[in-house]
């Protein structure tokens, strides 16, 4: 079984967009779901959000940031290459309904998962206010796509090279303070951003939803590796989530669990880069 890479593009430094030929998944996918891929027989199972999909053509898009060995290796593949495994759609679809006004907050590579949600919330009849951010303007993802998919788009960069100087959460607070009636805030990005964003929005009378990115193996409820504490109870991100009521999530535990293999991951990258220098890859 192999899955063909149809297109590949570096959309920001070390951030890539790939389009995979996966008709069964494209047909079944909904916003908020993810896939798990394996590059080859020896590879890890890597979970990535479905960034876009087309039922008619059978295409599924993923956007990933080079983090460790697997994503660096993935970045080396090009159109025409094959992935060994590509399974999905996993996780529950985002709970998209007509609610009124919805704020979508995406940081870093978290903008990728926000994009299909923006489209879905919009076509469900909501006013979609999107806030996207990155460290600097070069790292900002999908600006044009997001502008088109949203009713309003705000941008923040840490260094002020584009949009507002500061964090997406600053803009979130401003909008919530403006008195605009907001039904729901959806935050997707690095755990620390989701934690801070949740803190900012919590005092307001608004639903807050986050999409978690725990470490996963199977994505079908079989390993329990993805467990998170929600409202004092252990939940499996892959089958109970990935979306959860943000106020109830134990973000500190999530961050701690994501650090599980940090030492080994660093070594894997070192070994991989050494092998690359020696021309093994």
């Amino acid at each position: 079984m192999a899955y063909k890479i149809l297109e590949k593009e570096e959309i920001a430094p070390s951030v890539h967009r790939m389009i995979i030929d996966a008709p069964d998944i494209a047909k079944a996918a909904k916003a908020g779901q993810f896939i798990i891929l394996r590059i080859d027989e020896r590879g890890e199972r890597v979970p990535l959000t479905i960034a876009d999909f087309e039922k008619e053509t059978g295409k599924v898009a993923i956007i990933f940031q080079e983090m460790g060995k697997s994503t660096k290796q993935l970045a080396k593949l090009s159109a025409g290459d094959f992935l060994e495994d590509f399974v999905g759609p996993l996780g529950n679809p985002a709970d998209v309904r007509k609610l009124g006004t919805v704020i979508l907050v995406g940081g870093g590579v978290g903008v990728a998962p926000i994009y299909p949600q923006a489209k879905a919330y919009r076509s469900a009849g909501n006013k979609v206010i999107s806030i996207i951010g990155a460290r600097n303007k070069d790292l900002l993802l999908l600006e044009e796509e997001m502008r088109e998919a949203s009713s309003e788009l705000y941008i923040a960069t840490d260094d002020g090279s584009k949009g507002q100087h500061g964090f997406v959460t600053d803009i979130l607070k401003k909008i919530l303070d403006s008195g605009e009636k907001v039904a729901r805030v959806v935050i997707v990005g690095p755990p620390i951003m989701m934690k801070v964003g949740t803190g900012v929005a919590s005092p307001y009378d608004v639903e807050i939803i986050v999409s978690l990115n725990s470490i996963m193996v199977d994505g079908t409820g079989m390993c329990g590796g993805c467990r998170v504490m929600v409202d004092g109870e252990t939940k499996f991100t892959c089958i109970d989530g990935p979306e959860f009521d943000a106020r109830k999530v134990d973000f500190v535990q999530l961050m701690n669990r994501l650090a599980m293999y940090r030492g080994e991951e660093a070594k894997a990258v070192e070994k991989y880069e050494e092998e690359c220098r020696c021309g093994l890859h």
Partner: protein
Amino acid sequence: MEELHEEKQGKAKKERTPMPEQPAEERIKNFSEVALGYSKEDALAEASRCLSCKDPKCVEGCPVNVDIPGFIKLVSEENFEEAIEKIKATNTLPAICGRVCPQETQCEALCVLGKKGQPVAIGRLERFCADYEREKGVKDPEAMTPTGKKVAVVGSGPAGLTAAADLAKLGHKVTIFESLHKAGGVLSYGIPEFRLPKEIVRQELEYIKKLGVEVKPNYIIGRIKTLDELCDDFDAVFLGTGAGLPNFMGIEGENLNGVYSANEFLTRVNLMKAYDPEYDTMVRHGKHVLVVGGGNVAMDAARSALRLGAEEVSIVYRRGEDEMPARREEIEHAKEEGIIFRLLTNPVHILGDEKFNVTGVECIKMELGEADKSGRRSPVPVEGSEFLVPADVVVIAIGTSPNPIIFKGSEGLEQNKRGTVVADEETGATSKCGVFAGGDVVTGAATVISAMGAGKKSAKAIDEYLKEK
């Protein structure tokens, strides 16, 4: 009668023929198979112990009723080809069952020789025949006349594989849908290489493909297609989705880094070969590993941890050794390998450091109280007997529940309280028309052979259903 047999065969050997094994101090350094298998001489010696009983009790103990005296007689006549044919008439996966069946509670438990001495080593003989056939090269199956009917099998564990093989032999077009990237179910992701070499599972799968069965990995029913949609696309459906959802204890510290479910630990080690540096799979190699549970799963996790290089591995089990549900042989092997058994002990609390890493487990001593409904004496904690076991990896192996995704988005499939599917014991028929189920998804975590038996019964019932349809 027994006496007569013994006289006839001269001095029948009382002791069963030992299984050649890798020595414990060697095998804890590798993942190769522990039991090496009988030689021809071993097999002949062991086969000669069988009394060819007229009313063989052993057969009743086997969930699929293998003709045990029949095949053993053929072994003693050195007619190994026919011996394996005889086994395969009822058991499609003898190389696997010979290795992993809990023989001591099934076929061998009822062998008459067991009354006074040691029972015939039926499992080992079965394995010998299957390995003999594999070395010779398995004959390709003959082509069937297609019936034009299509059957979907969900899950590729022993239940699904058996149902698929039997249905294909009857001429139905079978497609297996499997959510993982590799087929085999627990045979692939759970039971370790040192007990069941994956090459054997691979060859069984090859054979099933040669029967014309199509296997679709990475295909999750309940996500890509619902069960309802599957029912529309196929004439019948067999569910063999197993019981793979891990239970946790719900004690403090269970989410610390270094605490694994047995499923995660074993999947990383077996399916994704974390022991092989050529693979990218991460797993914590603990120095002090503690495994909670007393079944095969616990033994497998403990012995895998040892092979990953742990200095000390202990098993914590709340009852006594006699109550342990694991195969006898696995308990013996684990002991030989130096696994520490902390019996009548239960974990109460897992401790960690400021970096969220597990550092130890607080345990409490238990004593056996009154017998419960199942006849087992239930353990009760001994107050004030808490003690600390240092550990940097903890594996929880206290049972599993049915895999949940199959139920998403479909209607009319009756489940009972424990989440298992309600199915007719004889046919596997469920409350949903055209849907049959068998194996762990119906019984809860059980055995390979019972899953196979259920797959077989369902295949027969599905065939009848399709004829009437």
